[in-house]
């Protein structure tokens, strides 16, 4: 009889988009190639953090080696770990899944100081890259996505194609979009429809 290994390391998080993603080039591809690149970022650790204590935030910054953004709709971090401003006293911590970030924080801070909600299982993340990425965002939301308004390290929480989404501007034409996992398949189809006229590549 085969033994089922149930240790935590053996369980891999399954992507909410795994069964709908087709890799390749689609839509109106011109001689200059696709003007949009789409890929899923998976698996990610996504934690919502609530605290109103400034000393706790300073200690957390030291623990995570990333400063917390206090300006509205901004992000801070590096290629590995990002912290997004969600609202007053509320942040989203995102990093590629490799350790248990929640345990790390919970071991250092008690539950009266920091309120953590693990959203890793509940969010799908899509990365848009390319010169037409902003055009896609403009199709889906009324936020000012202009190059001069929505710059690198800005984020927006909005209704994108009628779905609640968080958009993180990683670079001038690179955007990470966090969407509820239950709507990820719907979002993926809408995204493909919106991107077809530009020609896109799924990586």
């Amino acid at each position, binding site marked *: 009889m085969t033994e089922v290994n149930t240790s935590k390391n053996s369980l891999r998080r399954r992507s909410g988009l795994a069964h709908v993603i087709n890799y390749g080039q689609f839509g109106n591809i011109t001689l200059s190639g696709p003007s949009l690149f789409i890929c899923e970022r998976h698996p990610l650790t996504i934690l919502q953090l609530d605290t109103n204590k400034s000393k706790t935030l300073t200690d957390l910054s030291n623990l995570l080696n990333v400063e917390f953004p206090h300006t*509205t709709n901004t992000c801070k971090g590096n290629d590995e770990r990002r912290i997004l401003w969600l609202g007053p006293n509320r942040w989203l911590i995102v990093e590629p899944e490799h350790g248990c970030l929640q345990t790390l924080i919970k071991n250092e801070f008690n539950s009266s100081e920091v309120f953590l909600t693990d959203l890793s299982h509940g969010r799908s993340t899509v990365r848009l890259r390319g010169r037409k990425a902003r055009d896609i965002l403009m199709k889906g939301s009324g936020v000012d996505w202009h190059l001069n308004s929505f710059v690198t390290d800005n984020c927006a*929480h909005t209704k994108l194609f009628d779905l609640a989404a968080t958009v993180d501007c990683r670079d001038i034409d690179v955007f990470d979009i966090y969407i509820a996992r239950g709507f990820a398949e719907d979002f993926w189809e809408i995204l493909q429809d919106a991107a077809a006229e530009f020609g896109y590549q799924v990586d």
Partner: protein
Amino acid sequence: MLIINCPLCGPRDHAEFTYVGDATKNRPENSDNSNDNAWYDFVYLRDNPKGLHQELWQHSFGCRCFVKVLRNTLTHEIIATGMPKDNLILKEKGLELSV
């Protein structure tokens, strides 16, 4: 389309907001029975003004904060927005409630 200027997030489509209610109602100080009329007024009675009206909206698809909105119920023009503690009428000098 109405554009509501969230004090934290900036101008956003009103579809991102949820209407909460009349912002002119103040919660009665005491909860004892002697204050029943005040509570009845606070919970049930609402004016239906034609003209300027202060309302609470929640930016439910954004920062989730409550936003006070001064809106003209006749033209749907949004004249001013602020945090719930702000008095928008005082901010907009020269304008008076047409209740």
